[in-house]
């Protein structure tokens, strides 16, 4: 700054302009690392994926630099091997559908479990809240694979749940839970639950619980207080939590792989398959981009729907 100070007092306008320049420079410097990461680590690879999706698969993986729309065609359709007719790629569509359905169900389940949990923690005395949050977060620090295997140990045919049920005499043959959509649902809900609890808790922690009393005072029962007062004010947390759970669920890879088996493949596994055994990198790239589009479309639809409910007042 000493350099810019002149002997004569500068007019105020010059000083203001100088300060603005200074601020712009500081902001650019602070943003630089984030921008660098975005450009080189996110946009760059994305462009490569986009390019690959328009190329021809190599015989042993990789790509041949030859333009082709076949990968994109194959995302949704296939040519019958014998008759040459074009039909919808049922197998692909069912994977898409399963991924979206299970992600939505997982999100709903996480909300169903996570909201009461967050509410419980937010209404504890301030001193004990950190302890409860710690209990929520500790599993999150554990390796994803280990957590998934833990769930497997619970639900497999010789697992804890089945052994217990057989011991009590309620059933005599184990219930098949592994390698079902149920297993995927339970596993993903368990894995992603903290991502729901954290933002909902953050919203509820700021919530003024005196409003609950005001609701009761004005003839609202428990359910109405929840629906008319608590939920609308906790909505930013619920929206954030739902997005945080739904998005990684759509692309989940480890959990479906371990708990779902080959039968219940989800998009993440299917994409991996194309880059691995399938040796069809362009198709994998096209599928990955399709997933990205689905996620973005789902987010837009969701945020729009939630925003409209508000009557458009909150913008």
């Amino acid at each position, binding site marked *: 700054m000493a350099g810019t100070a002149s002997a004569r007092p500068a007019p105020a306008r010059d000083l203001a302009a100088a300060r603005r320049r200074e601020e712009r420079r500081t902001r650019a410097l602070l943003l630089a690392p984030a921008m660098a990461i975005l450009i080189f680590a996110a946009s760059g690879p994305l462009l490569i994926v986009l390019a690959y999706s328009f190329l021809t698969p190599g015989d042993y993986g990789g790509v041949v630099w030859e333009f082709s729309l076949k990968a994109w065609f194959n995302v949704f359709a296939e040519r019958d091997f014998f008759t040459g007719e074009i039909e919808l790629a049922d197998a692909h569509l069912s994977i898409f559908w399963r991924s979206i359905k299970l992600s939505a169900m997982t999100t709903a389940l996480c909300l169903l479990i996570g909201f009461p949990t967050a509410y419980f923690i937010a209404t504890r005395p301030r001193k004990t809240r950190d302890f409860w949050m710690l209990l929520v977060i500790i599993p999150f620090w554990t390796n994803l694979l280990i957590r998934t295997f833990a769930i497997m140990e619970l639900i497999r045919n010789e697992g804890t749940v089945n052994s217990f049920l057989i011991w009590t005499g309620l059933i005599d043959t184990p219930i098949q839970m592994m390698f079902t959509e149920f297993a995927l649902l339970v596993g993903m809900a368990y894995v992603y639950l903290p991502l729901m609890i954290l933002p909902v808790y953050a919203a509820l922690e700021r919530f*003024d619980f005196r*409003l609950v*009393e005001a609701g009761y*005072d*004005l003839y609202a029962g428990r359910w109405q207080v929840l629906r008319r007062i608590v939920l609308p004010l906790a909505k930013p947390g619920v929206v954030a939590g739902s997005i945080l759970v739904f998005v990684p669920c759509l692309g989940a890879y480890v959990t479906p792989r371990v708990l779902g088996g080959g039968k219940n493949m989800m998009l993440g596994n299917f994409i991996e398959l194309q880059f691995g055994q399938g040796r069809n990198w362009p198709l994998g790239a096209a599928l990955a981009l399709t997933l990205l589009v689905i996620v973005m479309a789902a987010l837009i639809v969701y945020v729009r729907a939630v925003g409209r409910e508000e009557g458009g007042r909150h913008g």
Partner: protein
Amino acid sequence: MIEIDRVTKVFGAGAEAFRALDAVNVTIRQNEFFTLLGPSGCGKTTLLRVMAGFVDPTEGAVTLEGDDLLRLAPYERPVNTVFQSYALFPHMTVAENIGFGLEMQGRPRDEVRRTVGEMLELVRMSELADRRTSEISGGQQQRVALARALAPRPRVLLLDEPLSALDFKLRKDMQLELKRLQSETGITFIFVTHDQEEALTMSDRIAVMNEGAIRQIGSPRDIYDHPAERFVADFIGDTNFLEAELLSKEEARAEVRLASGAAVTARAAEGGAEAGAVTLAIRPEHADLAPEGEGLLPGRLSDVVYFGTDTHFHVDLDAGGRFVVRRQNTPDRAEARAPGERVAVRFGARVGQVLRD
């Protein structure tokens, strides 16, 4: 009529137990502006919350027109509250806030709209009906909270220090506004405050509370002119306390001998000693200065403090202690007395109040 019968509330247990209310008895009449007055922690808010249904008493009964209130959940009681923090719903407009209670009662839509309109008019907020509660001032929020609580036409309105967050001038306006609303709606108002002046200006009757118990119930005049106990006399207004000897007592009339030897007639609070040493309370403005040798208590003027509306004369009594006399100022009366002068304090018969304790 609300009857509160031996209501006790103990928070916690064992060594940490805190007796917030200790066998409180009070009957509040229909259409009354009733004030619970006391220092913070005296139990007044707890008593209010017992009536609202947010606190379950450990013992005792609360009835409204003979109906047991304690059996009802807060949302079943024909009682509404104006909260100290207002507790307006931030995601609703002013009109939506006011209509919330009616809506929850399941009133028809057009009735809700009509009543909300009336309420907005009653509190003079019609122009701001569609504002969010965060977009209006503290005084306006206060009025919305009031309208919201009045809209369902409760039989009893509970007000928990609703004016404490307002600045002085606004508070004065709202005091009058509350009085007006109470007489216009005919609803029983139960008002909690620690501000004695607020209690005196607004109430039909006041219950002075301390340490979980009601110390005295009466009209503002009763409470101010005839405090029953030292706590009440001390908490409300300024008071001179004199040691005296009770000579005789017949119902509310007592003969006492002051430390100077002079005998005077005073009023006696119910209960308390029949003879012996007592404390006499006298308000500063109920006493006057007399030339030396004429009054009841001779002494030396130690301070003369000018307050604008009135002047305080501090007298060091020969018999010990200090007595303050307050005299209203008038433009044509020049105060000739100066500190150091010999004077006497005098007050009339039945001005002094013999305290229970």
